[in-house]
């Protein structure tokens, strides 16, 4: 069985879903169920113990077979993210934390420096740290050394639907990484998710593309199928592209005939 291993956890689904931006929590729950996902991320700021109707966390706990991964979206510094992670662990009981640090609330780009600092601290505290990062191969290795269980480089800006704009950097990260690489942010359509999987990503995280689709549960299912197909293709070994031209005058004639 071709499973995804993160820390000591094993998942058969390679699709991770985000839970923001949906028109209602009931639509979100339907999408989560339809996707067959086993790992779902929820922002700590959307936990609301005082007002059940406004809470995203509790309803998710009723879906069987799902591991919840709180995230620190809204934090702008390492200190805030660390504090948020501790609160999230206490409230959710989950060992996972998706470290998400946006120093600027407009463009939502991850801060590599603060993310590294927070991840280092949290890994030492025993969290299973999954940092959301720019597609930077060196940063990815630094985070691996710091004890993260996965890295989550962005395909393109959050909510942009620009797909795998960082493809060339992602290929380097995938080639070099000893921990799972999960493409997070920017995917617009299932074909892009399939492409990420064909490139060798271990999983993808999708949120906006499902949440704002015409029919989120059906779109969630479409993403699940695309991710499975892309993974299967990668595992089967994809045919090389043709196009390496054979020179008309041989390059190796000087070697003579082989003895």
């Amino acid at each position, binding site marked *: 069985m071709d499973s995804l291993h993160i820390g000591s956890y094993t998942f058969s689904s390679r699709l991770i879903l985000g839970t*923001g*931006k*949906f*028109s*209602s*929590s009931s639509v979100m729950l339907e999408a989560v169920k339809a996707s067959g996902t086993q790992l779902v991320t929820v922002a*700590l*700021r*959307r*936990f*609301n113990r*005082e*007002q059940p*109707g*406004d809470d995203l966390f509790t309803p998710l706990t009723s879906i069987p077979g799902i591991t919840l991964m709180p995230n620190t979206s*809204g*934090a*702008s*510094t390492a200190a*805030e993210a660390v*504090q*948020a992670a501790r*609160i999230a662990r206490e409230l959710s009981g989950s060992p996972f934390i998706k470290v998400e640090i946006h*120093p*600027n*609330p*407009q*463009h*939502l780009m991850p801060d590599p420096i*603060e993310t590294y600092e927070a991840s280092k601290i949290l890994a030492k505290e025993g969290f299973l740290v999954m940092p959301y990062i720019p597609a930077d191969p060196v940063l990815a290795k630094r985070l691996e050394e710091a004890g993260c269980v996965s890295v989550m480089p962005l395909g393109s800006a959050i*909510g*942009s*639907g620009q797909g795998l704009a960082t493809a060339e950097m992602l290929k380097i990260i995938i080639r070099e990484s000893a921990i799972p690489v999960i493409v997070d942010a920017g995917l617009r359509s299932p074909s892009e998710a399939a492409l990420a999987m064909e490139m060798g990503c271990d999983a993808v995280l999708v949120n*906006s593309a499902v*949440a*704002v689709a015409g029919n989120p549960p059906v779109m969630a299912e479409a993403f699940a199928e695309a991710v499975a197909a892309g993974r299967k293709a990668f595992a089967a070994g994809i045919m090389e592209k043709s196009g390496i031209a054979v020179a008309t005058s041989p390059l190796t004639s000087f070697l003579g005939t082989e003895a």
Partner: protein
Amino acid sequence: MNPLPEWLSAGHDETRFRAMLSPDSPYTLEQLAGESKAITLRRFGRTMSLYAPLYLSNHCSSGCAYCGFASDRKTPRRRLEQEEIRKELGAMKRLGISDVLLLTGERTKAADFDYLRTSVATAAADMQRVTVEAFPMSVSEYRELAEAGCTGITIYQETYDPLRYAELHRWGPKKDFRERLETPSRALEGGIKTVGLGVLLGLADPQEDALMLYRHLRYLGKTYWRAGLSVSFPRIRPQTGSYEPPFPVSDHLLARMIFAFRIALPDVELVLSTRESPAFRDGMAGIGVTRMSIASRTTVGGYHDAESSDRGQFDVFDDRTAEAFCNALRDKNIEPVFKNWEHAYNGPSHMEAEK
């Protein structure tokens, strides 16, 4: 001497913004609405973040011609004491509110900086997110306010036309145009994370003011790269209240402005208050605006103690209950979000120089 700073003069990237707002715009309202809706959906999803204002005090030292709290108005003056603030917050929390905007008039002895800072700390103990719309402060005061738990301030320039500004702000500290203009910069330098800007629509040429507001936002974004920015669209509605706006802004023009800001600044929070009608608010939800006030009282207090003696700063047009308003959003397939913040994210913004 030109009272406007260099950064409010023509920019290099405003051609489209001007074209969207120009009276002979090449873009139809419907075209702009379509583009604005697509951006809003992509960037903010099918959600609306909600807040409510709490007027702490209506004492005021300024004489703004258009305001119900101006110091020459004969409205009864009062301020809420900390115990009253706690009761008001308790009543707001029962409505589901966890994001509060605290308001005062211009700085007075009755409602000075210490009073405001204490009130912020009181509110931050109870609410997830506290923002302030009060008077201009110094960098060090903003630093103290941020440390007390204030994450954002709202400060409207009202108008960027210095001559109109001088006519309208007849006396008091608010008369100083430049002091007010530089307030958002001081707040960001002091560690306030988000600044909300706006012009009071109706006071001066709306297209010109919108362009200046756009330049101000671009300047702040470039100068303070961590700054969270939001834009509000307070409008003096014609034929309501005692002040007749010299430059009334129609629903169509207001909608066009909101679309233009959404398209030109796709990631910025756009805010619409209960000054606007239920129909206009419902219509703008999901196609540009991403943050709205609910169940607002514009009198001092008014949530716990519903009997208030003053008339309020302005008349609330959308007076639906929190529940009725949320249901209207849900009918439009938009999720009302009460809690979109976390205590852990309060405190001053990060400044590299201080590390």
